[in-house]
């Protein structure tokens, strides 16, 4: 039982201790196997946490046995257990996936650094999700961000633009984090506490400008981290030039975690009873979400680089999540959570299949996808399935999230939003359909460097890729699992416990 009582801390402690060990290992397979083992172990721990929370309700864990609100509290309810499972699950598939892809894309001497950094990045993201202490969120946010800057910069070996992308990401990410800290400082100054639940208690009924300013700073800070539409400029280059396996991980996990924190702050810390929040939703978040959905999706249509196209699509998809949030009903938050989870799965699968193409053909531009279905059938099929999921075709996970989003919009008496969701999905049809057309209908190039015959991607990549794709299909059919959990998560968040 001692194990179970300490369970909440284990997903953080285990990879945090294990990550530096990668640095002392020799190059080659050892750090890869070690990191894979650790990530799978972390996933098992997070799944255990999720099942415990689903059965017996939220867990509160006092770090170092210092009772909250004075001590740091880890609080796991369904909402963050779901995100924890997503993050660790994506890591548990992308790290085993990454071996071949990484040795082809980065300097061999840097591979052990890569595995150390990606584990630390995972720790940061898990820590942001698990903690109930507002300042702790900042610390973990920066742990994950700093390792992400390094991970993105590792792509500099193939394309030097990764370096400038990482630098821009660093500047914007640091500004975002600092805004977040200012927001926390304002809240701390007006309440004297950092524990999220205690903040809520202290702030109840006290709507003053200081708290409003605090929320504004937090919103901007997290908006930068989450690539909320006008603050997304760091994202396309970072995703496009990072090593392919890194793109798969951060695209699936990092922005989702920032959106989760935003939802957490909105409901657990502030609560919907603050009048300014609903105004903010209607006049700031909703227009930005809609603008992101349309503008970023339209920009995605015109991208020549598939990774960059997927990156712009990510910005658009963040719009759906924030749309769900800004509807402001329980169904809306539920839809946001479902989409956080499902979008993580589909983006991971899409970026993983691009990584396979990158490994065999050495490019991630559209040119590499010509006739791919006959050259690398499994990779191409995975891309098609995940792409359809991104569009929201029935029987895929994407359909589930769009469906709940539509339902939330119509239930809230905002049918116009529903139509806009459908309309922007049609843009997704264009940009995904364009790549599918290249893969299925175009002939294989007959001249140039891309004409050389290629083999299918190795099994070490295909198996994680298809596990991820399978998850998209499975959760597209078993809708009760995600939807049920997300519904309870939204209920517990909105219930204000």
């Amino acid at each position, binding site marked *: 039982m001692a194990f179970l009582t300490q369970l909440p801390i284990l997903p953080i402690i285990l990879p945090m201790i294990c990550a530096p060990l990668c640095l002392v290992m020799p190059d080659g397979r050892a750090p890869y196997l070690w990191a894979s083992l650790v990530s799978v172990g972390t996933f098992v721990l997070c799944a255990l946490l999720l099942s415990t929370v689903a059965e017996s309700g939220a867990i509160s864990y006092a770090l170092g046995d210092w009772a909250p609100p004075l001590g740091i509290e880890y609080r796991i309810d369904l909402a963050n257990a779901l995100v924890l499972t997503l993050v660790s699950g994506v890591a548990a598939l992308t790290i085993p996936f990454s071996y071949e892809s990484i040795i082809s894309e980065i300097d061999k001497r840097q591979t052990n650094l890569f595995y150390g950094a990606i584990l630390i990045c995972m720790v940061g993201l898990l820590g942001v999700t698990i903690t109930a202490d507002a*300042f702790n969120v900042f610390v973990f946010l920066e742990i994950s961000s700093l390792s992400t800057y390094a991970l993105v910069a590792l792509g*500099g070996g193939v394309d030097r633009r990764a370096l400038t992308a990482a*630098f*821009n990401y660093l500047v914007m990410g*640091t500004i975002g984090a600092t805004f977040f800290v200012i927001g926390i*400082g304002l809240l701390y100054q007006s309440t004297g506490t950092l524990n999220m639940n205690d903040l809520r208690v202290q702030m109840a009924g006290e709507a003053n400008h200081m708290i409003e300013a605090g929320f504004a700073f937090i919103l901007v800070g997290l908006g930068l981290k989450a690539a909320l539409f006008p603050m997304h400029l760091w994202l396309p280059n970072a995703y496009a030039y990072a090593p392919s396996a890194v793109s798969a991980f951060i695209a699936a996990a990092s922005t989702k975690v920032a959106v989760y924190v935003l939802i957490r702050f909105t409901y657990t810390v502030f609560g919907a009873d603050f009048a300014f929040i609903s105004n903010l939703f209607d006049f700031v978040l909703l227009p930005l979400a809609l603008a992101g959905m349309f503008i970023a999706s339209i920009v995605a249509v015109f991208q020549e680089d598939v990774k960059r196209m997927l990156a712009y699509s990510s910005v658009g998809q963040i719009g759906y999540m924030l749309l769900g949030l800004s509807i402001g009903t329980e169904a809306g938050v539920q839809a946001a959570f479902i989409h956080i989870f499902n979008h993580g799965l589909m983006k991971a699968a899409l970026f993983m299949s691009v990584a396979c193409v990158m490994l065999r053909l050495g490019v991630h531009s559209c040119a590499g996808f010509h006739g791919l279905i006959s050259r690398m059938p499994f990779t191409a099929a995975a891309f098609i399935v995940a792409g359809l999921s991104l569009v929201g075709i029935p029987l895929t996970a994407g359909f589930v999230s769009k469906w709940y989003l539509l339902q939330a919009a119509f239930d809230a008496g905002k049918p116009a939003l529903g139509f806009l969701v459908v309309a922007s999905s049609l843009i997704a049809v264009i940009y995904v359909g364009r790549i599918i057309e290249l893969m299925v209908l175009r002939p294989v190039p007959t001249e140039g460097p891309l004409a050389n015959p290629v083999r299918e991607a190795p099994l070490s990549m295909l198996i994680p890729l298809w596990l991820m794709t399978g998850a998209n299909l499975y959760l597209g059919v078993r809708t009760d699992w995600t939807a049920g959990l997300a519904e309870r998560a939204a209920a517990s968040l909105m219930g204000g416990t």
Partner: protein
Amino acid sequence: MAILQFIVERYNYWIFIILMMIGLYTVIARGNLVKKIIGLNIFQTSVFIYYISIGKIAGGTAPIYVPGDMERRTVHEEDHHGDGYNGKDHVATEETIRAKDHINGQSNDLHHGDALHQGDANELVTATGVAEGASGKVANLNAPALNRDLPANIHAGEANATIGAAPTSDKIANTASFNIKDSDAATGLGGEREPGLGQELAAASEIVANVLYSNPLPHVLILTAIVVGVATTAVGLSLAVRIREAYGTIEEDELETADTIAEFGKPDPDAPARAGAR
């Protein structure tokens, strides 16, 4: 004039805001990557100043534990709550009395000094005086320390006098312990040093009787944030080094031109929007 007063009273926030804006402006307006990092640093430092200034309490001392202060607070609480007595305090009280007896044997006249009569009979007054020639090393006079042989092992130049209402018996426990670092004085505490000590104790007791600490938490938070800031600067500067190795420049506009030429072979007017840097 009211506006002027409004501004002057909140000068720390104005410093914070001005620094913050300087930092942000530098990040946005400068094309040189190192200058951007410097701007980022100014921006982050302004937030450190903000945090530290919200932790400051007017008249408060640095949040470093003053010996005996906690005992005073404990007794305060027990006065308020009546039955808030527990075993731990009992031990502490006993130790205090033991220490008193121990020291009384060596310096009888010390606890008849002025300091001891200033405190209310129901209030525990802790006096800390720094003996002459002391180096300032602090020894906390809590229970474990008292267990040991007091005059022999305390090297910090401090004297601690305590008067309090012992929660168990309403009996006043007088404790005086003092220490002299000078090696020549270690053997004897009497004689010529006594008058000076008494005066210092009197002065110190007034200060310590109302110890007011600044809030330590923002300092701790900002220590963490400083570590994060240093790490960010290190990563940013090393990225700048790598960029210079790869491009031969760290000027943002030249980097964009280089990328555009590499991709299209000629300068492209759309470059800034596409590169996403601006």
